[in-house]
């Protein structure tokens, strides 16, 4: 029994890794603009560029890239805000769901714009089919493509030679959609539809059950949205229970396919990096570090979820299936644990079981996945986070061996280091400051804020801590017991999400732009080799020290304290 479930997650992971390799090579080919078998889409792309009034051949500097990226993001924000605020009167609303309140619309628009998908509403009653499609599905496509485009800009900067121009943002953006996201999403959506996920336009189905209860079954154009929600690592669910919902994720097969889809592009992006620069060894180093980090978080989670809640074991019930609170029978504990960790190391944040009910160590592993946010990481942006840690590791290694720190022939100097450090420290700052403020508010007036926490004690603290970690990691999963649809949570997490999305894109792109301009120093015997295992270990410890140890005191107050009371 247990072995079958373990074999299941092994197969899901193995097949993802195997397919990510050729996909990575393909990504490198299309971003380089070389010949590929998908060139039949070129006329469509030319049409899109013409309709958009865009010259896709023009090389852009890093400032121009950021200008284009931020401008179009602003346009999307305004669009989504309008849709959410007026969804009640817009078409495709068969269930007559109301408008969102302005603070909730603000939070939701930001949330999907930054690919975070923190959801302070439930899909069944809080959104209309129009919003699900024209705001949410739309953003799930374009924000993923934004992350991928920004990532390619950084790849360009690490090429040999000196340059100002780092490719064309629109070119990378449009190709990411036409040649990667749309085709794969279509395949995933078809699997879902044929496994029983709805794709319809009528409202809830009123039925009378066998026992005679009247029930309304929510449906809608779900399959199309769920496919890109996973593939683009956005994670925002169609229904309130996300991929735990039996229509959103009906079978073990759909579970495997959805889980596969969300891990695929982050892995492929790492391989693409190696092929793009024609330095495959470099991507093996990156992949090695990420995979070690991932497995270190996965193993304890699988162990604790499969062994069940000791307090329930103590009552004498049979827990051979594992900890079943918040889990679905068709997935089982192992696949739920695997899903939980993949969705937190990768900033997808969809859930197929309720993280709030996971064992404390699993909750901690999920928190750590979001705190590091670079063991694979979200589509495109995960690599950018990793890049920041590489810069820091190069600098520290350089100091240790007494050489000028260089990355691929470019000197790392004070300016780049300052940017990298600001980006790296921003993450703990946002999380810890946000949690501290909330804990302060709560402790000052526990009766007024009684609705916030679904659980007392250490676990209640973890709920607040998780919410800010998830916002800052642009993850979007939650300890959903938190009563988070209040102005405080909507606005504070909204602000955290904006800062935590754009600064970690602006920072690495700026570093990339600065590096690309520098004189290229050919490799020599004195060069620090970054494609070695030694350097991999160095990066791993930089990530561990900066991203994980900074949180240790807070983790001790939440999940660790809870663990020691339970066991």
């Amino acid at each position, binding site marked *: *029994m247990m072995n*079958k*479930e373990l074999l*299941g997650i092994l*197969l899901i992971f193995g097949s993802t890794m195997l397919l990510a390799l050729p996909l990575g090579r393909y990504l490198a080919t299309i971003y380089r603009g070389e010949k590929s078998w998908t060139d039949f889409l070129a006329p469509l792309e030319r049409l899109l560029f013409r*309709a958009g*009034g865009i010259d896709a051949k023009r090389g852009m500097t890093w400032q121009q890239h950021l*200008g284009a990226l931020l*401008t179009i993001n602003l*346009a999307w924000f305004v669009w989504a805000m309008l849709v959410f605020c007026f969804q009640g009167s817009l078409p495709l609303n068969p269930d007559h769901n109301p408008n969102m309140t302005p603070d909730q619309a603000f939070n939701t628009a930001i949330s999907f714009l930054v690919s975070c998908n923190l959801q302070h509403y439930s899909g069944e*009653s809080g959104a209309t089919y129009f919003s699900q*499609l*024209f705001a949410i*599905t739309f953003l799930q*496509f374009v924000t993923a493509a934004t992350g991928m485009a920004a990532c390619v800009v950084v790849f360009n900067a690490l090429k040999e030679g000196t340059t100002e121009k780092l490719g064309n943002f629109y070119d990378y953006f449009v190709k990411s959609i036409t040649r990667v996201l749309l085709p794969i999403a279509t395949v995933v959506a*078809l699997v879902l*539809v044929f496994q*029983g996920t709805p*794709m*319809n336009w009528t409202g809830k*189905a009123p039925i009378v*059950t*066998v026992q005679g*209860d009247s*029930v*309304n079954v*929510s449906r809608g154009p779900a*399959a*199309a949205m769920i496919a*890109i929600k996973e593939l683009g690592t956005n994670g925002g669910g169609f229904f309130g*229970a996300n991929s*735990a*919902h*039996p*229509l959103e994720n*009906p079978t073990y097969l759909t579970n495997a396919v959805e889980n596969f889809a969300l891990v695929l592009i982050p892995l492929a992006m790492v391989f693409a990096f190696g092929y793009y620069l024609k330095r495959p060894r470099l991507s093996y180093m990156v992949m090695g570090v990420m995979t070690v980090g991932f497995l270190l978080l996965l193993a304890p989670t699988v162990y604790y979820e499969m062994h069940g809640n000791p*307090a*329930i074991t103590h009552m004498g*019930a*049979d*827990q*051979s299936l*594992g900890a079943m*609170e*918040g*889990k*679905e*029978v*068709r*997935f089982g504990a192992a696949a739920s644990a695997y899903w939980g960790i993949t969705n937190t190391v990768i900033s997808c944040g969809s*859930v197929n*079981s*309720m993280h709030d*009910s*996971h064992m404390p160590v699993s909750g901690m592993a999920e928190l750590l996945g979001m705190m590091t946010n670079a063991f694979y990481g979200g589509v495109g942006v995960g690599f950018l986070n990793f890049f920041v840690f590489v810069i820091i590791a190069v600098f520290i290694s350089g100091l240790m061996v007494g050489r000028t720190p260089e990355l691929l022939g470019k000197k790392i100097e004070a300016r780049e280091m300052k940017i990298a450090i600001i980006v790296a420290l921003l993450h703990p700052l946002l999380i810890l400051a946000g949690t501290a403020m909330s804990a302060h508010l709560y402790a000052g007036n526990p009766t007024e804020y009684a609705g916030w926490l679904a*659980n*007392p004690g250490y676990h209640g603290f973890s709920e607040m801590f998780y919410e800010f970690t998830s916002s800052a990691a642009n993850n979007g999963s939650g300890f959903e*017991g938190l009563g988070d649809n209040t102005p405080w949570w909507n606005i504070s997490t909204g602000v955290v999400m904006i800062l935590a999305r754009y600064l970690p894109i602006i920072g690495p792109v700026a570093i990339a732009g600065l590096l690309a301009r520098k004189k290229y120093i050919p490799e020599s015997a004195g060069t620090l080799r970054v494609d070695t295992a030694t350097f991999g270990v160095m990066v791993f410890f930089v990530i561990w020290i900066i991203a994980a140890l900074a949180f240790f005191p807070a983790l001790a107050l939440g999940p660790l304290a*809870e663990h020691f009371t*339970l066991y």
Partner: protein
Amino acid sequence: MKTQLLSALRLTLVMLVLCCGLYPALITVAAQLAPGHGEGVQISRHGRVVGFANVGQKFDRPEYFNSRPSAADYHADASSGSNKGPSNPEYLAVVKARLDTFLLQNPGVKAADVPAELITASGSGLDPHLSPAGALVQVARVARARRLPEARVRALVQQQIEPGTLGPDHVNVLKLNLALDALAGL
């Protein structure tokens, strides 16, 4: 800046057509060939829809195999988990009460035979399944309530087990209970 904004708006419009018009239309058309035609797979009895195959419903009467506890009380338009933490004392008291109730309703069953899914709420509140053990442990009670031989009810459960190729084996509670009703000629 102005041209950039204009490009942004135009590109947004084009992408809306592609990602929110053409793509969902394609999936909707394909869905017509799928089981349930994209409306969700419905199950009818005597010409009346009694449920969706994938959506769990409430069964709490003794003559039916009971479904799992649900934080959403099986309201299929408000899916939700309990979000209770593993150490929450109030929550643990509820679990203990469910176990005690189950033992009362199923005399002769020992606590060690009660699989945890019968006393814990699912993630969606709409879990349509039980583990085989979760159904088998209810056989004696159901057989007694329906005045059927235990062996026949047990055989029915065995028939309804859907083996998980990689995931856990499971039983669809709605299908099991419909088969049970059919056995009784309902």
